[in-house]
């Protein structure tokens, strides 16, 4: 669909000037030179179709036609194979710069995108119980000069909102009138149940910004390159959040998801290339609000589920492995008879990665980022010290 916020198409060859982050500003040299990027996959990405448990005896029968994507895929180990569209990420895995965690989930157990994303971004245990984002609270743990975050989006997403001031960047070519009209249409439909619901979805989708498949992946690659420039500028941001949408594959999943994954793969490649030597100090988290149903639905897609997978990518990551306590895909093993059963807390993965990456004590990081589930176990060794 047309995307009002697909800012990347507006990127020219000219240098980007950031309000408040201009070259003239001077920052103290940081104690570390770490970079952290959070790529949020909005719409519930299908972890089972991204990192497939091909060694699970129930995999082929449960996934049906979705399993065919992995017929020729290279297996990472005896259990898992990566989607063939992820060639760059596969190369990162081979050079021990990619770690995958499977059967992960946030504390959220229902299946609403918006509630699920709120939990994923706030770090709370229930939707709207925490008022700001864990990425912002993470900034508060860093030395003051390093506490610079930026959202590559028109507005600051929930995960980055909070007491620490952050920037957002998205060149916009939109006339204000259009956004204004959208707001007025929302009022116009406020008392009309059908149109109100439709409009809520329409605008929510639109807020999800660029989907990974847009512009045949060029949009995603441009986003990766932009993020790299923002993160490697002198005195630039240490932490960036990248929005991605288009993961809600209820119908015709195979082609759509392949295009999405190619976009994500190209974005990661562009990020790595743009960061140059800084890539060695970088950790990229890729995570989604929840997974999708194990079985294919009637429209060649999958519906909202529970357990999914997450990635840690970058030169700072102790990669080349899959972290999973595999629950199995047999009918009896499924969560509520339909979803991948979560066996690893996404919060534990995030908190542990952040703690290791920035040299913060595990329990302290966990308490700050996930105050309502702060007793999650810390996983050591996700990133290089």
């Amino acid at each position, binding site marked *: 669909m047309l995307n009002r916020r697909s800012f990347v198409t507006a990127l020219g060859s000219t240098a980007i000037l950031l309000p408040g982050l201009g070259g003239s500003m001077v920052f103290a040299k940081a104690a570390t030179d770490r970079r952290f990027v959070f790529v949020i996959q909005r719409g519930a990405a299908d972890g089972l179709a991204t990192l497939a448990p091909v060694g699970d005896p129930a995999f082929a029968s449960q996934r049906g036609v979705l399993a065919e994507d992995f017929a020729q895929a290279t297996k990472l180990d005896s259990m898992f194979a990566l989607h063939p569209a992820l060639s760059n990420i596969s190369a990162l895995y081979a050079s021990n710069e990619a770690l995958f965690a499977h059967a992960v989930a946030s504390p959220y157990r229902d299946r609403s995108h918006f509630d699920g994303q709120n939990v994923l971004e706030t770090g709370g245990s229930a939707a709207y119980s925490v008022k700001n984002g864990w990425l912002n609270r993470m900034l508060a743990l860093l030395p003051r000069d390093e506490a610079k975050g930026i959202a590559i989006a028109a507005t600051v997403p929930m995960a980055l909102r909070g007491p620490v001031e952050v920037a957002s960047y998205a060149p916009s070519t939109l006339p204000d009138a259009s956004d204004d009209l959208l707001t007025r249409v929302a009022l116009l439909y406020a008392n009309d149940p059908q*149109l109100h619901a439709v409009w809520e979805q329409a605008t929510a989708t639109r807020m999800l910004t660029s989907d990974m498949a847009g512009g045949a992946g060029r949009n995603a690659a441009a986003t990766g390159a932009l993020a790299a420039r923002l993160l490697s500028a002198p005195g630039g941001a240490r932490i960036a959040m990248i929005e991605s949408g288009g993961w809600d594959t209820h119908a015709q999943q195979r082609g759509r998801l392949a295009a999405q994954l190619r976009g994500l793969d190209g974005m990661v490649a562009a990020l790595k290339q743009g960061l140059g030597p800084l890539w060695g100090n970088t950790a990229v988290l890729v995570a989604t609000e929840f997974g999708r149903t194990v079985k294919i639905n009637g429209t060649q897609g999958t519906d909202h589920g529970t357990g999914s997978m997450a990635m840690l990518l970058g030169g700072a990551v102790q990669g080349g492995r899959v972290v999973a306590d595999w629950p199995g895909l047999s009918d009896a093993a499924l969560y509520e008879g339909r979803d991948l059963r979560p066996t690893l807390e996404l919060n534990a993965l995030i908190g542990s990665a952040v703690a290791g990456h920035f040299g913060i004590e595990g329990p302290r990081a966990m308490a700050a980022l996930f105050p309502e589930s702060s007793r999650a176990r810390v996983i050591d060794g996700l990133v290089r010290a």
Partner: protein
Amino acid sequence: MTAAAIALNRFGLGARPDQAALDRPQAWLLAQLDRYEPRPAAIAALPPTSTIAGNLSDYLEMQRQNRCQKRDENPGTMADRPQTPQRRRAAGYAPPPMSGEPMAGEAGLQDKGGIGAMAERGTAAPRDPVAQARRFARDQARSYYMGAVAARAQTALTSPSPFAERLVHFWANHFAVSVDKLVVIGLAGQLEFEAIRPHVMGKFGDMLQAVERHPAMLLYLDQAASIGPNSTGGQIAARRQNAGLNENLAREILELHTLGVRTGYGQGDVTELARALTGWTVAGLGRGAGARFVGIDGEPGSFVFAARLHEPGSRTVLGRPFAQAGEDQAAAVLDFLGTHPATARHITTKLARHFAGDDPPVALVARLETAFLKTGGDLPSLYRVLVDAPECWIAPPVKFKNPWEWSIGAMRALGLREVQPQAVTGLLTQLGQPVWRPGSPAGWDDVAASWAGPDAVMRRVEAAERMAGRISDTLDARARASQLFPAALSDTTAQAIARAESPSQGLALLLVAPESMRR
């Protein structure tokens, strides 16, 4: 909605600013049944089917020559070809272009009529003449298509009988073709103008006969290529190439055009109807000895019955014998189907859904069915039942407009009387309902679930903003709103329009207001 608003929007195509107040809405609707113009000026001005089909015929001939020439220059490629022109000529018939692949019409039309005429136009265009000709033919068909869409839209914008025009659109969708095939692109509008429009105020059975004989339908559903296996042509074809009976049209007649799916007919009935239909084909899309032999060389695009392709013998459809010979056999089956009780149920359910809501009221369907059977499928009798039915006059809107209805309604609301062809085709494609391109012979869905989606509504908002932006700032949206929806405008809409920051924003809000989205 008030009775006037219902007449204008649910039955009509939306109010126009110059519409006089409707004191007697039902009488206004009924008068349109007499006032209806089957051939309004915009449509009468279009090129006739013979011209469009003639161009198509020229193109097919040119392709044949191009390919022959290619073979002459490059004889080694002949071995790759599954069928040589000589074989086709010996068979007497080459199936017209109905591969079913989108826009792939050329595939089956090559080499028609043998190689006899190849020397006539010896000089081919440089580079790849086949591709060039194809592009030219597609551009030409596309320009006919655009002209037809514009004529349809202009008629809908200006007609004094918008209720009747809505019925035209309804029937065209019932007998849908889709411009996914090159040979259908230029002819799709002609089906509506030549087979639907003359019969909208007549009998259903007459419309059925006209539609099934129209070149657009015969080509779209592969009937023109169907050959009776035991016919003269079929006997020759069977020895030479893979040609024979094609059941596509027969199946869709039973499933979509008349009885309806799962109404008791079986595969045997489909095959028998397909056999009865053999010989119903289109003239002028083949030339030379073969076409003459088969009997399909006449004015391009005209219906012909090719006796040499007709399957001999008596047929049995739904247990009833049809012993007629030749063309009359399929015509008799169609007469039988056109007044069948299952057809009555199927047709009247669709009509009721269109005017009384996505879940058509059972009692209304029953009354329509009775009228259909009593009158032998007299369509105006059905329209009168609809206009009289309380089920069609309930105050809350019963239908979410499809993109065509919304677009025409918006343009009427803005007072437009003329449209640019590109603007209409572009708008409808953007909104998800390209004209005459539903993608299947089932036509477009007539339920809200197919149209009231988030992306669809967002696109309407974007389109409304653009449309309103092109209108002069002198048009006052507040006045226009109360003019279009007298005593039927909600406070929310009135307020939103009144608070708009500019006249054009006010118009955009009017065009996407709930009152404009439904009928």
